[in-house]
């Protein structure tokens, strides 16, 4: 039977890991994801996890170990944050290139320098071209639900691609919330048995994994890899619906909040979307026709689905919790602006970078952004395409 538990985000991932009970868990603790590894270690010591738990000497080794274990044929997971994900960087590409369905919980945290332990999306955005599926969570409940679904998505035969689930550092990882934890047996039934297609441990298969490719094969193998993540959308949709049917919380590519009759739209991912919903409720009571679009899946990017919603708006503000120095805009913005390019009738659009290194974003900031959007609609001009929120100028 499902039950309510008071857990923080890290403990939630630990709890989900215990229920999934992967064959191999390899992780190195790093703030703010340390408590995930700690919770798993405790479960393992208490005999509640039967899979192998390895704590190697670094995140690079942790991901290498995941790659080895997944190649061997196991169901594998890890967890990390920030510099830890950065240290995994070269191995992330190898996991994706070898089409290994590894699942990683990433507690989103800023990157050095300056050193900072708080939440922003610089870490996973830095890995956005690594070939991993990326799913972001607004709160602990979504992190739990996304993490369980991640195994189904990663392991689907059409996909066989690693999946990372992002949850905001501290805001989610360290905040206690009451979450619904589903029944162990029901979770196991939902994710099902995992069967590797080409396990290295099968001595009857004579094969090579990860051989060198010259100029005559590398390109074809890369194209073959891309097909996996391009096959993911129908699987993500199907798994999200099935999860809804079974556990009562359905998921898609993004969430629309009070968008039906909206003229103005704020696009923001993860925990800030929660604050944005409160801001929208207040502004709605003042008669402003503003709504929220909260992307959940960032890779593969649901460009057409998002564009079809946004073209109905007059003005759109895209909020990014990371920067892309020297680029035309931050990652989410460039994706969305590009997605709108093919439509003749499209909204005016502006990019706001917020919350780097855990800087707060409050209801008043969403109200300021909405005022900007109103001005853009009034004048028909976007004066500043790119600006920063809650920054001392």
């Amino acid at each position: 039977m499902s039950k309510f538990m008071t857990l923080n985000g890290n403990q939630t991932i630990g709890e989900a890991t215990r229920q999934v009970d992967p064959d191999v868990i390899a992780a190195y603790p790093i703030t703010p994801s340390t408590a995930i590894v700690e919770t798993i270690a405790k479960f393992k010591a208490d005999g509640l996890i039967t899979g192998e738990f390895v704590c190697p000497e670094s995140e690079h080794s942790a991901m290498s170990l995941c790659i080895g274990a997944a190649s061997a044929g196991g169901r594998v997971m890890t967890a990390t944050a920030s510099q830890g994900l950065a240290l995994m960087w070269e191995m992330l590409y190898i996991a994706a290139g070898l089409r290994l369905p590894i699942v990683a919980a990433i507690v989103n945290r800023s990157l050095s320098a300056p050193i900072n332990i708080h939440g922003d999306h610089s870490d996973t955005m830095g890995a956005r071209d690594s070939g991993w599926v990326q799913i972001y969570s607004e709160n602990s409940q979504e992190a739990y639900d996304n993490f369980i679904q991640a195994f189904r998505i990663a392991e689907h035969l059409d996909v066989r691609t690693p999946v990372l689930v992002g949850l905001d550092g501290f805001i989610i990882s360290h905040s206690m919330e009451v979450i619904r934890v589903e029944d162990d047996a029901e979770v196991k039934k939902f994710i099902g048995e995992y069967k590797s297609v080409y396990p290295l441990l099968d001595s009857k298969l004579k094969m090579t994994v990860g051989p060198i490719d010259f100029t005559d094969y590398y390109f074809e193998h890369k194209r073959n890899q891309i097909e996996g993540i391009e096959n993911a959308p129908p699987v993500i949709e199907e798994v999200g619906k099935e999860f809804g049917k079974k556990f009562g919380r359905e998921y898609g590519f993004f969430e629309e909040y009070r968008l039906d009759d909206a003229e103005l739209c704020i696009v923001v991912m993860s925990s800030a979307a929660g604050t944005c919903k409160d801001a929208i409720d207040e502004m709605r009571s003042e008669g402003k026709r503003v709504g929220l679009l909260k992307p959940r899946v960032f890779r593969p990017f649901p460009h057409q689905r998002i564009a079809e919603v946004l073209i109905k708006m007059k003005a759109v503000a895209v909020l990014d919790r990371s920067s892309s120095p020297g680029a035309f805009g931050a990652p989410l913005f460039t994706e969305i602006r590009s997605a709108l390019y093919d439509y003749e009738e499209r909204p005016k659009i502006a990019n706001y970078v917020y919350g780097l290194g855990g800087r707060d974003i409050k209801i008043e900031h969403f109200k300021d952004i909405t005022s900007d959007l109103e001005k853009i609609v009034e004048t028909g001009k976007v004066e500043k395409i790119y600006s920063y929120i809650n920054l001392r100028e």
Partner: protein
Amino acid sequence: MRKESWKELTIGTINLDAGNSVKNLTGTWRSGKKPQFIEEKCIHCFFCWLYCPHFAIEVDGDKVKGINYDYCTGCGICSVECPPKDKAIIMVKEEIKLFEEKAR
């Protein structure tokens, strides 16, 4: 040799044809020079066989027999390592061919 399209490849770079590196004719890498084996000068010390990075020295029992040009990259290590003052392996000029012409 026909090369597969991306759709025909096994996922995850997996190669189910283990040992197929014999099909990779590294001899196509030679660019202008190749070793020539002079049997009467050979003392059969096997240094060339030991040092060759591509196992391109052909032997029969305790005798060196010659060079397999399908795999010899023309690196010249065998010629340098050959102990006799009057070398049993010397590097000679070879016409440079395009990759496609050399590949079978």
